[in-house]
């Protein structure tokens, strides 16, 4: 940066801060100790007048590094957003006066807290640089949509309506996907009584008529590379001709495959023509087209039994452990195919828990009952051929007895298996870019971490289903429809609409160099000092978003558009060469090192709390708002994600005399709440090595604790700090105070 660094410290006296702590003392520390060139106190810093005071210093006095010592960084963000400068926040409201009692006794330690947060803010901002976009994006905004079923077509139409171009790549020779094989769909409009037209033909017509939408049939994506705003995709036709096109964002709508009913021989599948799956029944119904439905070998059907959850919601080997969500209403719809044509046909839906999701689900169920469909709560154990048709043996769950019934046709509700591509956790990815192109891969990503979207469980593509269901682990690539989770047509349409908007947002953000969720708008991005890099590849492996590739010399290659700014790479790097303009080993390390550590016999321990800014830090802020008190010995530093915690911070803190360290991240595992999906998990693995450090320093293991904190842990988070204070009282002060 050409300009010279000039640090300004602004201390607020409002919100009772001035009454509770000596701000003049804090100002002296900022100037004398921390070398802040401009230091000012203000009665009401977030007021127009206070903000103007700062802006004037920026404009006229060349101040470009600003430490605001006032409220939490989560408060007054709009007032304190200054352009083209580096900003840090010292939290003396939520972090100090609101969590400490207003007593004479407490005033000394309260003042010490406020002084430390001043030191931390000034030292943090001193090592920051105002972030600027990298300019990597090519500013493309058109969407690539992989899969031309209902989800894909909906996404394309929605994007086109919003003014963005879309290209659909469809593997088969026609648009429509699985829904094209349906005779009718479950109704989406009131009065929800009868099956409706699937709407596929109308969607195809709308796609064909839209000049903003391009369709490639009989084509697959054989290579995808780049990042949001500059994706490049090879689209290869059946004949092998390949064209490379560029896109701003991608939506994967690869749909599902019906579960293989051959795995259900006990239910009579594969032995004759009287046992079919739901999809096979659709074909029979479509062939009849409103007339008499016959079995595939042309026999009359006078009775039908629908067996729900066939090979689903089952622990048995090879079965699906989950519920596919649509099959109950689908069976009701299919029973109506028979009843509407001839009410004398016996139709029985055999269920254990009937689920009819969606606004009209319950009405549709009633309509089915009204049409005379019989609903039996029972579990089918065996379907056998009785010469004339089938005998279904089942346990009647209401009458609590084993019984059986005869049927001319049995329909199995077998459920959805995601077309989620290659499971990259199973297929090794050690030789980036050199993998054989597998027929199974959908996107063929040229990413270091693997060629398809990561999966979460049961083979469905991962998305942050607890808080941000659209967010996948590949920035700018969204999954929608049954590849993300089992869903029906209505849900898939909504899902695809949302995904289209998210994709547009990703492309727009990329053009401005701004991060996507959850640090939306962040202009900083990780860069690394090549000379120091040992090519250990830890950053490329650990990045939860697969943002880092490798260049020809096998150095990490950061793709800014794919990066979510979590800092996991920075935490992973053993030689600490990765940093952001406004977040680095030094911005946090400087805060840790500049806390005043009293001598051992002062009996004033220091507890370092590294708190995730997404959940733990807000929880502590809210605790403060609720007047929950915690130890005056705590010094809390917000971090982007627990994943960004570098072991050096812990080692430095222990060496400089902190008595306890608490790391607060989000829940990990299958039900993760980590905003960066894997960050918290990775950090906790990393922290298992802290024990070695503690041992080498002959320190007690209780001095470092890692916790999973939810944003609702308003009581628990402060309690954990107090617990640590109690532990220190028990085991004694750290001997490392120099």
């Amino acid at each position: 940066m050409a300009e010279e660094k000039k640090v300004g410290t602004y201390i607020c006296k409002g919100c009772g801060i001035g009454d509770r702590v000596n701000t003049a003392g804090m100002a002296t520390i900022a100037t004398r100790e921390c070398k802040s060139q401009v230091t000012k106190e203000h009665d009401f810093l977030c007021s127009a007048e206070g903000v103007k005071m700062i802006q004037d210093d920026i404009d006229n006095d060349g101040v470009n590094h600003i430490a605001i010592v006032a409220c939490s960084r989560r408060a007054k963000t709009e007032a304190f957003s200054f352009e083209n400068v580096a900003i840090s926040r010292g939290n003396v409201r939520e972090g100090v006066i609101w969590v400490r009692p207003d007593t004479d006794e407490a005033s000394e330690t309260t003042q010490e807290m406020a002084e430390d947060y001043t030191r931390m803010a000034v030292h943090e901002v001193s090592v920051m640089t105002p972030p600027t976009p990298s300019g990597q994006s090519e500013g493309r905004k058109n969407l690539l949509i992989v899969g031309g079923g209902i989800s894909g077509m909906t996404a394309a139409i929605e994007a086109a309506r919003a003014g963005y171009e879309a290209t659909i790549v469809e593997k088969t020779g026609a648009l429509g996907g699985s829904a094209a094989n349906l005779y009718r769909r479950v109704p989406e409009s009131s009065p929800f009584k009868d099956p409706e037209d699937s709407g596929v033909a109308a969607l195809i017509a709308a796609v064909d008529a839209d000049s903003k939408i391009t369709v490639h049939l009989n084509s697959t994506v054989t290579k995808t590379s780049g990042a949001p705003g500059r994706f490049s995709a090879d689209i290869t036709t059946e004949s092998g001709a390949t064209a490379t096109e560029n896109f701003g964002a991608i939506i994967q709508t690869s749909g599902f495959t019906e579960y293989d009913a051959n795995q259900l021989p006990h239910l009579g599948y594969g032995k004759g023509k009287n046992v079919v799956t739901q999809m096979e029944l659709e074909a029979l119904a479509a062939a009849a087209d409103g007339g008499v439905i016959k079995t595939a070998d042309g026999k009359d059907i006078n009775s039908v039994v629908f067996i729900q959850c066939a090979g689903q919601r089952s622990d048995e080997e090879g079965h699906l452990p989950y519920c596919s969500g649509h099959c109950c209403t689908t069976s009701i719809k299919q029973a109506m195919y028979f009843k509407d044509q001839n009410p004398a046909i016996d139709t029985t839906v055999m269920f254990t828990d009937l689920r009819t999701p969606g606004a009209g689900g319950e009405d549709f169920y009633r309509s089915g009952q009204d049409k005379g469909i019989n609903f039996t709560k029972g579990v089918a154990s065996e379907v056998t051929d009785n010469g004339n048709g089938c005998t279904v043996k089942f346990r009647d769950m209401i009458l609590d007895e084993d019984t059986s019934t005869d049927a001319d046709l049995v329909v199995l509700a077998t459920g959805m298996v995601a077309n989620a591509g290659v499971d990259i956790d199973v297929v090794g990815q050690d030789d980036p870019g050199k993998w054989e192109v597998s027929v199974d891969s959908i996107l063929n990503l040229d990413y270091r971490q693997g060629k398809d979207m990561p999966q979460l469980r049961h083979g469905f593509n991962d998305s942050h289903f607890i808080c941000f269901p659209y967010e996948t682990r590949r920035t700018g690539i969204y999954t929608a429809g049954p590849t993300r989770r089992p869903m029906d047509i209505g849900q898939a349409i909504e899902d695809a609409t949302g995904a289209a908007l998210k994709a547009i947002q990703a492309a727009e953000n990329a053009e401005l160099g701004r991060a996507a969720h959850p640090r939306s708008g962040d202009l900083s991005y990780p860069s690394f000092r090549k000379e120091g890099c040992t090519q250990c590849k830890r950053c490329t492996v650990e990045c939860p978003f697969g943002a880092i590739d490798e260049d020809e010399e096998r150095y990490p290659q950061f793709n800014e558009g794919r990066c979510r700014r979590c800092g996991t790479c920075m935490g992973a790097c053993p030689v600490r060469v990765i940093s952001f303009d406004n977040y680095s080993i030094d911005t946090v390390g400087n805060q840790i090192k500049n806390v005043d550590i009293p001598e051992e016999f002062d009996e004033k321990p220091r507890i370092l709390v590294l708190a995730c800014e997404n959940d733990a830090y807000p929880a502590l802020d809210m605790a403060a708002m609720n007047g929950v008190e915690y130890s005056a010995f705590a010094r809390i530093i917000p971090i982007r994600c627990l994943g960004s915690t570098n072991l050096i911070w812990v080692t430095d803190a222990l060496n400089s005399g902190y008595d306890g360290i608490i790391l607060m991240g989000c829940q990990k595992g299958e039900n993760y709440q980590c905003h960066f999906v894997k960050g918290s998990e990775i950090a906790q693995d990393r922290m298992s090595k802290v024990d070695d450090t503690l041992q080498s320093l002959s320190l007690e293991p209780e001095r470092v604790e890692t916790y999973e904190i939810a944003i609702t842990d308003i009581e628990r988070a402060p309690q954990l700090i107090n617990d640590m204070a109690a532990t220190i009282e028990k085991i004694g002060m750290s001997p490392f105070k120099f």
Partner: protein
Amino acid sequence: MSDMNTAMVEKYRNSFLSEVEANVEEGEWVKMCMQCGVCSGSCPFGPYWDHPPQELFMMIRAGKREAVLSSESMWMCTSCYNCIARCPRGLPITHIMHGLAHYAKRLGLAPKNQQTMKFASIFWDNLTKKGRVNELQLGLKLYFMNGFVEGIKTALCMKEMGMSMLMTKRMSPMEYFGGHSIKDTKGLHAILKKAREIEEAKAKQF
């Protein structure tokens, strides 16, 4: 009446549900039950029934004709209307219970000696005789419904209440010999006779 039973079996061989729909009061509702069990859980007598309402509905759908019609269950209903108030599907359960009981009696399948049924007959006979319920006669009939010894025991038990009612003129011993009637008893009997004829003509069609 067992002729009617044979006729019904013949007619609805395949579907007891259709039989119920056609012949039992509010029977067309049975198919709308979604087996949630709220009725059985709400019925103050639920735990004492062989088959609480939800189960009866399932049995009807499963074609268990014999078991349903000869069951004591629907006779247990006290018309408290708890189930109707709570059924999320709006089934008139109480009415269906009485409908089933009535249908079972008509077919001659109701359990012999069914207490509720016996009392209902006594009540009906008492009421139709003069067009008004004769409380004294009804009470005594009820006491002696199950024999002389039990009748005496019950009467002794209720002695005090009876005496107080006499003293306060809430009951007159003279009622035992005749009692009052409505103005036009003949007319009432004619109406009832006609109604019975219509019913029987209906039943003959089967």
